[in-house]
């Protein structure tokens, strides 16, 4: 079920009404979380519950096996990781691999073509598979001990707030929390409420209202018919905020729901568009995934410890894999590669640091950084490489300056875009760190703002849509 659906509201009301009675004993608490999460997950398709159960049981058993394998623990880890990747690959990557194999077969003049009926991608599989892998790797590294209770593990891996679209919460972070319970304080509940309200506002008011802009742009032929440089820059600004508000909105709601249970999930988005470099961007965007790739791919590859050239190679591999994690298509790999290129150039030239020292340097850095991030998003959004390149060509065409396509697609989404931009400017200008943010006036303003955001979620919500990151 979607966080932005009526059924979820009913589910959450029931869950939090029962939670105070269910949280006291470990076994009861874990069983309650697991049962509720399975119900939440099975609402889409009850068969998915068995997949989640299989993945959970696999990682639970593999964790115990690694801990008791002695000198063979590396082999046990390899087997556990391979099993996770096979599960993910079977659902997510087989058709992509076959598509490319068939392409190569055609290229060498063979008529033979491999066929495979791809099952629909189970929602959230990329997230819980990665949680499973990190759990095994952390046991292997001795950072955590495996849990002896299957229920404890299932309550961790399936916990409904993070199950579908993260954050990817590490075992070391959440498993110990689940062994205790605390009465939530009023402050925790208020913070949780603010996270839920803000996240919902970002999703249903901003992301859902601006999504129509790009949908219509592609419906009207995309770059084939809409010839305008400013239009495509505006369109990519729209998409950049759509995906940010959609995904960070989900993360906020997930963190808020966890807070209501008395648990803490890590911050997943820290205003990435106010970053002052690409490195900083990746320290702020989907932090639980970027740190996952850092710890389980980049560092095992050698990270930056084996010389400058290896740094670039390892970073490119990590970024390409990160792209592929988002989707089984070359456009996602290209998105990762574009970021790798920007990171390499940044490392070689140190341009953000140099530019940042100039007067108004921060604004200049943003003025150069943002367009590059937008260009990378083109690959993420475009249905294929041809369309992506055609859009980038339009974005560079200084002869096509008409704004007419903006009016064809409609300006209403831009009003909501402006709200999203204003929200981020609040942080870019540092108002959140000012004395105002600590004042009584701020607390009053926060209250009024929360009430207005709830109002907007009711009357100005966009057409209900699934969260973008569900597809990953």
């Amino acid at each position, binding site marked *: *079920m*979607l966080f932005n*659906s*009526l*059924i979820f509201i*009913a589910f959450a009301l029931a869950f939090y009404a029962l939670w105070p009675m269910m949280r006291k004993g470990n076994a009861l608490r874990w069983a309650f979380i697991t049962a509720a999460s399975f119900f939440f997950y099975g*609402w889409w398709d009850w068969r998915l519950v068995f997949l989640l159960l299989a993945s959970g049981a696999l990682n639970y058993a593999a964790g115990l096996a690694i801990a008791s394998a002695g000198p063979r623990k590396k082999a046990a880890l390899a087997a556990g990781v391979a099993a996770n990747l096979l599960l993910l690959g079977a659902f997510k990557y087989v058709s992509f691999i076959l598509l490319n194999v068939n392409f190569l077969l055609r290229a060498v003049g063979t008529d033979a073509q491999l066929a495979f009926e791809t099952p629909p991608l189970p929602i959230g599989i990329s997230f819980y598979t990665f949680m499973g892998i990190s759990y095994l790797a952390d046991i292997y590294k001795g950072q955590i001990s495996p849990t002896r209770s299957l229920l404890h593990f299932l309550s961790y891996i399936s916990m409904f707030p993070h199950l579908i679209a993260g954050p990817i919460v590490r075992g070391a972070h959440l498993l110990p929390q689940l062994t205790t319970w605390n009465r939530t*304080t*009023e*402050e925790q*509940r*208020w913070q949780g*409420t603010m996270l839920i309200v803000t996240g919902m506002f970002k999703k249903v008011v901003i992301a859902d209202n601006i999504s129509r802009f790009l949908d219509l742009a*592609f*419906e*009207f*032929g*995309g770059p*084939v*018919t*809409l010839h305008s440089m400013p239009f495509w820059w505006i369109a990519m600004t729209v998409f950049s905020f759509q995906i940010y508000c959609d995904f960070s909105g989900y993360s906020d709601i997930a963190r808020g729901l966890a807070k209501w249970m008395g648990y803490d999930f890590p911050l997943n988005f820290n205003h990435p568009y106010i970053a002052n470099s690409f490195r900083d961007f990746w320290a702020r965007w989907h932090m639980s995934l970027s740190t996952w790739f850092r710890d389980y791919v980049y560092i095992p590859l050698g990270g930056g410890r084996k010389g400058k050239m290896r740094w670039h190679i390892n970073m490119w591999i990590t970024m390409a894999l990160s792209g592929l994690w988002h989707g089984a298509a070359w456009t996602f790999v290209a998105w990762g590669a574009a970021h790798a290129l920007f990171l390499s150039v940044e490392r070689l030239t140190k341009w953000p640091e140099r530019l940042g020292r100039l007067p108004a340097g921060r604004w200049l850095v943003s003025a150069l950084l943002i367009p590059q991030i937008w260009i990378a998003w083109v690959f993420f959004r475009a249905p294929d490489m041809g369309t992506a390149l055609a859009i980038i060509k339009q974005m560079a065409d200084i002869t096509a300056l008409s704004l007419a396509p903006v009016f*064809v697609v409609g300006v*209403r989404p831009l009003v909501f875009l402006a709200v999203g931009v204003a929200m981020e400017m609040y942080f870019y200008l540092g108002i959140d760190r000012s004395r105002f943010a600590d004042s009584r006036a701020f607390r009053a303003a926060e*209250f009024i703002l*929360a*009430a*207005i955001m*709830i*109002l907007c979620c*009711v*009357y*100005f*919500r*966009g*057409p209900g849509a699934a969260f973008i990151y569900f597809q990953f």
Partner: protein
Amino acid sequence: MMRERLTALVLVSALLTGAFGMTRPAQPWVQGMQENLFWLKKMQWNREFDIALAGDSRMFRGVSPEDLDRSLPGLRIANYGFSGCGFSRPYLDAIGGILDPRSKQRIIVLGVTPHSLTPNAARNNGYIDKKNLDPFSAWVFLTFPGISTYLKPYSSVEMRMLTGGPPLAKYYARYHASGWVASRKDPEDPREALEEYRRMFEGGNTVDPAQEDELASYVRKWRAQGIRVIGFRPPVSREMLELETRISGFDEARFVNKFKAAGGVWLDIDQTGYHSYDGSHLEEKAARRFSRDLGTAIADALKNPAN
């Protein structure tokens, strides 16, 4: 203090939300059933009609079962059209599902527009939107239609009215329980829809012959089940007809051959003889007149037992 803060937020939000709903501008030109209820009821139809009219908005705005009934008395007729609806497999399956299996005369009438045979229409359309609504939400909307209407999002028109913006054309719509939406616009702009369609087709969303084949295969299947299948191209403005003939990729002769070969009956109706308020949809009176003419044509076709 904190307890008061949360409770206060709940109370203030409830009051604010309730009060704001009262500011919703009245739109006396939208009449009949509540819109949400109209679509949800349509989705609930199940094995209860003799004639199912299917297609996109040209169908659900353009064909009135009440007027069709004059030439086809005694038959239970439903307009099962949905916005932007393409003839995709889920929709085709659903069309057959609203016919009463015990009926002696089961008839499917398809309004075939070029757009309804495009890939975009197959993927994203009003039918799929409604089908994807989770059952709990549907239950809430059906059980508490007043509340869900009160809390529904403000439309562009309502926002414009609320903010005192320049007036938009008044879009009259009356939602009939039969599935028909009688509509007209004031003032009219018979060229309004042309640009959108031009962009859509030029952008590559053109008729997909594979979807024509899929539709033909369903016609064959229905015929094998004893269901009579009638097709026609809904009327539009002359400019729209020319535009679609030129750039939509719809080869009517080719399609009609496939349709007839599958066992369907194709009606050659007057494609530009009825008044459209935006180039694409028939105005209420024109829709009624067209429905009567269509009813006569269907009745004539049914006289031939081979059809």
